[in-house]
């Protein structure tokens, strides 16, 4: 028995080292198509640049958190014209689990006067894996990211995290900026694109089934803001009609978000033509110009930016 246990422990040690070595091979020389539960793709949507810039950030009036809808939907230059300094903390497929991470790590320390939490309902129904891999792939690994990875608990995440930790030390693989042609990073966290891609005008009808874990994380993030006495609004940025109307339970989702705080669904406030979208989910620059102007107007009427302007 003793011999068996000792042997098993030795084998576990050997196997752990072997595992790490093979993961490093997967991250470096094995073609990506051969790796199923591993995806160190180097990040996308300029996540690394955004968070590098955020690390140096001092004072800011307005902070945006959310998915690619956030980093493609809120242009700091437009807000600047209205006298509002802004930073965009959006990241690809950012689910409420990662939004809470962003709020905890950056926003509550920056103490902005207002936080806009952009909600893309479908991300309330995911496990948060894709966004977490984006953060890890962008080189953002700290104890909170590790803890969140354990909470999401997926082997793909662990493999990517293992390589990511090694890569952060030895810089074998560089972080990417974006996969999309025509994207430009604008200081303040925004990604600008003037393109309009042709997209499908019909989609399967579906309902968003909100995950209890995501909703709990979302509420916890809001509670944290309340505790820090930071004002926030929940906003659903517009996305294409065909995409928006494919969700069968939009009214139910609106009720849920309204119950959590001040909420605006711009899919119901604005009706933008398809040409103002980059794809069926994101605005392009023409769309952002109109949307941001409307947003500033809407929030000003509610006194949000009035308060900011007075403070400035």
């Amino acid at each position, binding site marked *: *028995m003793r*011999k068996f246990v000792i042997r098993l422990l030795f084998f576990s040690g050997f196997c752990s080292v072997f595992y790490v070595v093979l993961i490093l091979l997967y991250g470096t020389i094995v073609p990506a198509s051969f790796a*199923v*539960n591993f995806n160190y793709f180097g990040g996308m949507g300029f996540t690394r640049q955004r968070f590098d810039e955020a690390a140096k950030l001092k004072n800011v009036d307005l902070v945006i958190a959310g998915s690619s809808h956030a980093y493609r939907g809120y242009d700091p230059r437009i807000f600047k014209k209205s006298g509002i300094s802004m930073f965009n903390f959006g990241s690809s497929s950012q689910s409420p689990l990662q939004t809470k991470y962003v709020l905890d790590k950056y926003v509550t320390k920056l103490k902005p006067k207002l936080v806009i939490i952009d909600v893309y309902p479908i991300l309330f129904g995911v496990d948060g894996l894709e966004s977490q891999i984006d953060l890890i792939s962008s080189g953002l690994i700290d104890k909170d990211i590790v803890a969140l990875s354990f909470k999401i608990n997926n082997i793909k995440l662990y493999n990517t995290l293992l390589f990511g930790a090694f890569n952060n030390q030895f810089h074998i693989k560089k972080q990417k900026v974006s996969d999309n042609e025509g994207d430009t990073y604008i200081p303040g966290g925004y990604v600008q694109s003037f393109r309009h891609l042709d997209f499908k005008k019909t989609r399967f009808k579906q309902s968003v089934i909100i995950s209890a874990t995501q909703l709990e994380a979302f509420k916890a993030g809001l509670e944290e803001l309340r505790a820090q006495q930071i004002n926030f609004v929940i906003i659903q940025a517009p996305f294409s009609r065909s995409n928006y109307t494919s969700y069968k339970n939009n009214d139910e989702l609106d009720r849920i978000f309204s119950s959590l705080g001040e909420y605006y669904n711009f899919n119901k406030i604005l009706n933008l033509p398809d040409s103002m979208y980059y794809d069926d989910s994101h605005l392009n620059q023409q769309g952002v110009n109109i949307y941001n102007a409307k947003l500033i107007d809407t929030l000003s009427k509610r006194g949000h930016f009035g308060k900011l302007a007075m403070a400035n």
Partner: protein
Amino acid sequence: MLFNSLNFAVFLPIIFCLYWLVNRNGLKIQNILLLAASYYFYSCWDYRFLFLLIFSTLLDYFTGLKMEDAKGIKMKRFWFWLSVSVNLGFLGVFKYYNFFAESFVSSFGHFGIKLHASTINVILPVGISFYTFHGLSYVIDIYKGRIKPERNFVDYSLFVSFFPLLVAGPIERATHLLPQIKRKRAFDYSKAIDGCRQILWGLFKKVIIADNCAEYANMVFNHSSNYSGSTLVLGALMFTFQIYGDFSGYSDIAIGTAKLFGIDLLRNFAFPYFSRDMAEFWRRWHISLSSWFKDYLYIPLGGSKGNVWMRIRNTFIIFIVSGFWHGANWTFIIWGFLNALFIIPSIVMKTNRSNLETVAQGRLLPSFKELTQMVATFSLTVIAWIFFRSASIGQAFQVIRDIFRSSLFTAPHNPPRPVILLILIIFMAIEWIGREGRYAIENVGLTWPPLLRWSFYSVIIVFIGMYMQTGGSDFIYFQF
């Protein structure tokens, strides 16, 4: 608690350590511990069904004793039939009631008579088919005078409920398992290492082969009318590997786990896809069930004795009953019927025992004749699996009909990743190399330097981590 879950990875080492730590306190404590662990393991699915398991155990335990103590044959027969009818009654209610009710209504519907079936909304208790068959074999063996009843209730309960085999077999016999439960067990280093190796291979089969093949098979069979002939063939092939990886993987984990506790379970699979005829296939596929039906149904019916028509009748009976054992659906019955049909020629020509040895024994490659026989047998099993996997007989016929269209010669739709196909080929190559062992990697690398051998096992572990399906899935045979 699934074998391929984190919960089991915690549960098993704890029970293993406790089991060998209490070894010095005697066999009784070890058996009590194993029984408690088994009940805990079972209650992780649904604790309510634990009462059913305990009731079934009590029934067979007491009827076994009553048969032994019965004064005359009438009383002995009474207790025997009480046990058999209650056991089959439970199985009937939980597994087959709705099937019979719906089939009854449907058959009257053909004559224009409209009836309303009163179906019941029951959840099938996990493992009921397996532990019922454990109990039945025990009471039948006592009735036939092959064994004496077990008087120690803990030992008997452990025979029925031993956690590695509780939910999906192998279906044990009292003559094989009970003596091991009653014998003092000493820790055997080689057996424990062998058990770990078998668990590892079982996990590989389940997590990599079965789950990855399932993804494609499910895609195809869930919308079979949308796909081309070549896609349907690939889907059927993927299911063929899925069910083998799933069930034989489960059996390997169960047998390997039992070895850690010093217990040998019956072998359940012996590389069935390398069979040269259907009779050989059925000697190598789900061996513990096939031999159960052979011993408790086929032989009592007359077996191979009697004229050719008797043998054909008996063959059809056991295969159709075997199909029905798998589930309350006509697809399983047709699957059993087809297998009987495929095996009949060898029964008639008395060639059903011509391939008893492992194929190409002592050689690396099979002869052309052996290869042809294996391909033919494999193709027949694939056709039968189409019925097993389909949701209805109509779907099965649709799949077979649509395979033979011109689209058979087009590229399959959305094929699995090349890396998965490559792993499948490597897997079958390892199975082929290791076909003379009890499981494929039993003897692989035993003569290699330890570092190389450990690297081989580590590669399997890395592959599990790299290619496992992240969604997780149940074992197919849990539903039976």
